[in-house]
């Protein structure tokens, strides 16, 4: 049942030109950044070859690419998630889901998986770029995998937040703006605060947990952070959907 809803969500995403436009633009921007990094690598390579234990192609090309991808995806996530539930409210199609024999949890997880499906496609296309380097050089697959895991988890967290914001309003644009605001806040939250506060704020920051994984350090705390965010916001969404039917 979850997969039925997810398939419909994904299908509707790809039936609108928005999803295709986003895929194309993202791919173009990231390809540009990728090529720029390759350029840097080519200029640096003669000098790096002389140094023992110098940073490899994974550090100089892949890590910056994934770091930039994080920012680009922060910008586009609101556009993908904004319509997820808002459109169901606005088009009155939510009554179809409410009167069908499915639970709120199934509805929310279905919607969520649908969005993740889109991001998976985006991630796969992105992954092809670093993999193409294998044709000419060795690549630290461990670092690449850690970076991709980090990006994937972060995207999943973005999606959960976006879905929740979409459940709050009938207006997709409002959902997009609030999602963007919250994501950006979580991205830069560690920049503020005094020395004592930095610890807490640093833990809340999306960016600080991503940095570790980009370096190839797999820290279960970072993974737990993203999983917590995902669980928290999908939980909120389920509660929110339940609450739309309750007397108030």
């Amino acid at each position, binding site marked *: *049942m979850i997969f*039925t*809803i997810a398939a*419909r969500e994904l*299908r*509707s995403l790809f*039936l*609108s030109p928005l999803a295709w436009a986003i895929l194309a633009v993202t791919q173009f921007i990231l390809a540009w950044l990728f090529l720029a990094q390759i350029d840097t690598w080519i200029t640096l390579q003669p000098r790096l070859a002389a140094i023992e234990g110098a940073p490899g192609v994974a550090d100089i090309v892949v890590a910056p690419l994934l770091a930039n991808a994080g920012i680009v995806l922060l910008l586009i996530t609101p556009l993908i998630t904004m319509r997820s539930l808002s459109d169901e409210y606005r*088009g*009155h*199609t*939510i*009554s*179809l*889901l*409410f*009167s*069908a*024999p*499915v*639970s709120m949890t199934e509805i929310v997880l279905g919607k969520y998986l649908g969005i993740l499906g889109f991001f998976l496609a985006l991630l796969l296309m992105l992954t092809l770029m670093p993999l193409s380097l294998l044709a000419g050089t060795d690549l630290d697959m461990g670092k690449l995998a850690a970076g991709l895991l980090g990006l994937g988890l972060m995207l999943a967290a973005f999606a959960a937040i976006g879905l929740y914001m979409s459940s709050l309003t009938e207006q997709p644009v409002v959902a997009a703006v609030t999602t963007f605001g919250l994501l950006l806040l979580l991205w830069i939250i560690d920049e503020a605060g005094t020395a004592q506060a930095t610890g807490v704020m640093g833990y809340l920051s999306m960016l600080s947990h991503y940095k570790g994984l980009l370096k190839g350090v797999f820290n279960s705390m970072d993974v737990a952070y993203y999983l917590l965010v995902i669980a928290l916001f999908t939980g909120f969404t389920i509660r929110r959907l339940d609450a739309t*039917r*309750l*007397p*108030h």
Partner: protein
Amino acid sequence: MSSNSLVTAAGLYRYYNQHCAVNDVSFELSRGDVLGFLGPNGAGKSSTMQMLSGNLSPSAGEIIINGIDLLDRPKDAKREIGYLAEQPPVYRELTVNEYLDYCARLNRIPRERRAQALATAKDRCGLADVATRLIGNLSKGYRQRVGIAQAIIHTPAVVILDEPTVGLDPLQIREIRSLIRELGEDHGIILSTHILPEVQATCNRVQIIHQGRLVFADTAAGLDARMSATSLVARFGNPPDVSRLLALPGVAEVAALDDGRMRIDFTGDSPAEALVEQAVAGGWRLQELTAERHTLEQIFIELTTGDAPGHASGAAA
């Protein structure tokens, strides 16, 4: 609860903040019933429909669908419900086939029965010709039919239709009504509307809801009886004395109307036959004789505003 009761609603309340939209509504629906829910706008029709379909939780009360408590076991109960909201819940970007297939999956119709269910629903709602078209490109009438097809695709015990003919042209309305009557043969149907002829055309039971309360519940025949005539209107070329008309059996009151006609209120059996005999014998030159029926409108207004339906008040006493 009788064994063939499809829907039992008991003591339903629904509050929006302090406003009580549905106030102590209770009723039953049996197999083969087409129940018309009448009421002016804002009377609580839609709220009641939404509660019955699980789109809204009641503030208090109990809903049993085909023996299953909707609030305790929503998933099982919702298998027995088909619901068409005021706005048909259709995805404009899907074709009719894709949409109905999605609905069939949502309602957990097993894969091997899905194609058959789709074909049946399309056939019943006359959608075969537009099956491959995008719902967004269909006319309002067809979209409404897609909405109905969605509600009956899993052959639920109860079909709940909220104002199914709103915004359709007369031809489409007639088609939808005949479809509803047809569906009524093997589903229990609850239909909400504020259009009175719709109830006369399709329903065998009627409930009138006003300000959240049920003010009238009867069979369509019962409603018909309430509407039956208690007055005659006659025009004479040579009008007799009022006292001669009053002398006719059952006549309670005679009033001259502005246009020279006379209204004769009566109790019990119609005095029409006696009146005609007297008119011929007395040379009153009877030119016109009509039995006045209360329209559903009059009864509706009487029930919802507390006013008596005009002139009939004297005769009813």
